[in-house]
């Protein structure tokens, strides 16, 4: 059983276009700012969000039009960010999260996206259904290391 009081909540939707990667980072950074993160914590969060959003745009939707969804939640000092796409989904999830695995080497992808999200945040959970879409849930508690 998990109990939590949600102090603040936001939901964002935007078109699956690469111009919106920077926009998504700015939105999550502005939301996280309420927790008074250090510059390094904020950089970690922005980097992780950038990975998730880029994946939704290039792997989830690719050349087809779509909408990326981000949910943000603050409970106490903990930030939860959920990135969802209704794109093509991931067939082999345990392979996908391996460091250096990429299905798009021709796009110069490094296969480090999931590894970055996992390392820069406290937790990462991925749910994906082929043909339906992908949800990445990231969380980070601010002020742990100071």
């Amino acid at each position: 059983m998990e109990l939590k009081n949600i102090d603040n909540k936001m939901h964002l939707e935007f078109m699956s276009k690469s111009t919106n990667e920077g926009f998504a980072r700015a939105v999550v950074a502005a939301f996280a700012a309420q927790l008074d993160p250090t510059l390094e914590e904020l950089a970690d969060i922005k980097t992780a969000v950038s990975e998730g959003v880029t994946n939704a745009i290039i792997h989830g939707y690719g050349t087809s039009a779509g909408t990326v969804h981000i949910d943000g939640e603050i409970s106490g000092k903990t930030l939860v960010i959920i990135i969802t796409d209704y794109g093509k989904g991931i067939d082999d999830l345990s392979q996908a999260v391996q460091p250096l695995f990429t299905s798009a080497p021709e796009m110069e992808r490094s296969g480090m996206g999931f590894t970055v999200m996992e390392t820069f945040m406290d937790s990462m959970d991925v749910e994906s259904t082929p043909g339906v879409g992908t949800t990445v849930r990231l969380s980070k508690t601010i002020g742990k290391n100071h």
Partner: protein
Amino acid sequence: MQIQLQMKGRTLVAKLTGDLDHHSAKTVKDMLESAIVNQSAQNLVFDFSGLSFMDSSGIGVILGRYKFIHSMGGQVTIASKNKTVNRLIAMSGIERLISVYDSVELAVNSVQGGK
């Protein structure tokens, strides 16, 4: 994303200013590729002192240029003091191929064999 290019001997120094993400990666790739060819650059130094953001798309850009330069017998180094960027680089394992220095001077000297 802004790119300033400069030749030091046979080394191309590329100073990137702004955000290096998937959105800007293609432009950076194209500009570096044509500069390397046009200037007959042997080595490449990434100057990340002006970088405000980088994610794993940047790793792809670095690695892609490394492969090309390396196949021609040249070297690639990076000048970066940005903590998050350096953690990304370390995490990706490319540090085994590409050294990271505190300053452009050190990064240039290293590929030019201390000259």
